[in-house]
């Protein structure tokens, strides 16, 4: 993929003799001014809004323990059946924003979310909205593979069982097999479905978690750095899987690897210090970033 080649080149650090690069380097020193600027910006640079989005979010603020604000006025639309990558330095609020989308932040004490978050036009923070039902529609895969200490079969069957999706055992068997196949794990584990899920390798565990998430047929899958604990081969398997899953699900993925974002996503959102700075087609973000913060980040100029 040409974008990958490009990011690889630009990753080789700021010895570029390009005058515009030197120019942006000088400006990068004055973060305070840029933050001021971000505060007053009404919307992110690029193309944050879509027609008929899956998720529609406006002015999202998140506070931890009242005093600490984690994200500031994020406006973003997420389209149907697209893979959107969220990138940015550590602590920039991308994971926090991701966890807003299925109300996982509810489980954190003192976390408060304000603003408008709509899923298919439905307010997900409305009083009558049940987070349990929401999370069945918006599944999640975590950074560290976290299979339950149960058998492989029971791990995948967990969701269908708690939501009462099946009438009998054979239907459940079908769902388990189907989900494992979609996650590309079935052939490896079909002879040992009753073996504990924690006995699998890291990459297999993460695919098991993906199978577990898709077993309840969600509409959206949120992935919080799903490959950061895996080796490159397991990462490649999961990236292929994400590309296939795009046919049936909307996928939001937080990643620290810009190559990964470039490889698998259609759109990319760049977060910085709790602000959503720039959203655009992945190609555009990596070849022609509009905002100088984005440029600094993707060229590796931020330490």
């Amino acid at each position, binding site marked *: 993929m040409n974008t990958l080649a490009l990011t690889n080149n630009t990753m080789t650090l700021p010895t570029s003799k390009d005058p515009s690069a030197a120019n942006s380097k000088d400006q990068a020193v004055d973060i305070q001014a840029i933050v001021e600027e971000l505060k007053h910006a009404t919307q992110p640079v690029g193309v944050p809004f879509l027609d008929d989005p899956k998720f529609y979010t406006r002015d999202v603020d998140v506070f931890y323990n009242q005093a600490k604000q984690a994200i500031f006025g994020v406006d973003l639309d997420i389209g149907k059946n697209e893979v959107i990558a969220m990138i940015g330095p550590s602590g920039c609020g991308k994971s926090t924003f991701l966890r807003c989308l299925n109300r*996982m932040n509810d489980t954190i004490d003192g976390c408060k979310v304000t603003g408008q978050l709509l899923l298919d036009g439905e307010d997900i923070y409305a009083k009558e909205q049940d987070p*349990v*039902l929401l999370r069945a529609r918006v599944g*999640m895969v*975590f950074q560290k593979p*976290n299979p*339950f*200490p149960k058998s492989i079969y029971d791990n995948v069957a967990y969701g269908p069982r708690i939501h009462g999706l099946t009438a009998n055992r054979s239907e459940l068997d079908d769902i388990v097999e189907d989900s494992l196949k979609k996650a590309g794990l079935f052939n490896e584990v079909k002879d040992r479905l009753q073996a504990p899920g924690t006995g699998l390798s890291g990459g297999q565990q993460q695919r098991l978690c993906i199978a577990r998430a898709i077993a*309840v047929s969600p509409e959206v899958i949120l992935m919080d750095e799903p490959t950061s604990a895996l080796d490159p081969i397991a990462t490649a398997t999961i990236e292929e899987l994400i590309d296939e899953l795009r046919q049936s699900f909307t996928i939001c993925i937080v990643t620290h690897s810009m190559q990964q974002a470039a490889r698998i996503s259609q759109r990319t959102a760049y977060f910085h210090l709790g602000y959503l700075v720039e959203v655009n087609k992945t190609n555009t973000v990596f070849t022609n970033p509009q905002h100088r913060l984005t440029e600094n980040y993707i060229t590796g100029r931020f330490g």
Partner: protein
Amino acid sequence: MNTSIILLLLLVLAAFSYFFGRKRALAVSNGNRGVNKLHSLPGYYGHLVVVWCLLPSLIALMLWSFFSPTFISQNVISSLPTEIQSTDTTNVNLFMNRVESMAKAGVIDETAEPAQQEAARRYIELQHNSNIIKAVLVFALAGLGIFWAFRKIAPNFRARNQVEKVIVGLMILCASIAIVTTLGIVLSVLFESLRFFQAVPITEFLFGTHWSPQTAIRNDQVGGSGSFGAIPLFAGTLLISVIALAIAVPVGLMSAIYLSEYASKRVRAWVKPALEVLAGIPTVVYGFFAALTVAPFIRTLGESIGLTVASESALAAGLVMGVMIIPFMSSLSDDVINAVPQAMRDGSYGMGATRSETIKQVILPAALPGIVGAFLLAASRAIGETMIVVMAAGLSANLTANPLEAVTTVTVQIVTLLTGDQEFDSPKTLAAFALGLTLFVLTLILNILALRIVRKYREQYE
């Protein structure tokens, strides 16, 4: 010079030898204090000198203090006039008791027999000599140790490794104290029990259903012939423990789940210490609470609905004991539930599971080993508890499953068998050891079973 002064001086010597050792290490390295010149940090050389100073001398001190009294008294006995030596051992022992008590007091009683006075003088003299030899020996060894360690200090001498070996040895010693104590207890109980089983057949003890340990001590005394069927005692123990656990396990587990999963931080900060206060109440207090408040209450309540309730009942004891062990169950379970990784909860919530589904299907299975551990601890507290039962459940060994009657337990019987004036070779007294042994074996079996269950059903995370 007595032992405590010797010890004090040794410690002072050790403190000095640390500094000398350290200084010497710095000196032999010729001021080359760099990493490559001296193998270990200078402090290790100091510590090594301390070890050499203390270890041999302390061992010598211990051995000498342990054996010298025996040697001295043997020496004194052999110097006694032959007419005393030729009498039987009881007489010699009585004679020596008097001699030793005079020697300990350091004053010769003028009213004592001349032979005793003579022996006491000899005793005192020997003791004096022994103390001098002890002091000289100990300090000589300490000095030799310091000298030896000093000689060994060289830049490439591996002091750290040796000091660490000594510390490991010390830790092994500490760990073995617990094991040796357990072994000692088991053996002493075992041998006394064997003596009991010579008097009473083991089958009668284990399968007899009548417990009445009163035996006549003298031939002319009127007393029971003694019957040692332990079944009623174990049945009573079982009954009371089951009642107690039936209270403590559900209440404790539920409160643990509430505290760890539902309670806000503020509530938890108040409730958990409050629950743990329960564990700090002395069992005697629980005992009179059971006997004076709960038992009469149960009795009135039972009678008002037409039941006959004994004034001391298994129910009263069991209820109060149950309350007593709630904190064990709740506090330990709370800890293990909190130890289940947050990732498990996130995974479950992320699937759209509710809190109760998460608790039942993910958290409790993962925490099972710890919860069984808490249960076992609670059970062994219930089985071993004595005070509450003595006060609230009575002493009569009824074989019954009715919790409204008075029962007694193994531990209570052990207490009653061993309190007061006893003859230590009658079956009545020895029965206590047999009961103790059986109780020990039963709890051991319980532990092994529980371990098996845990191994089979646990769901291991990571």
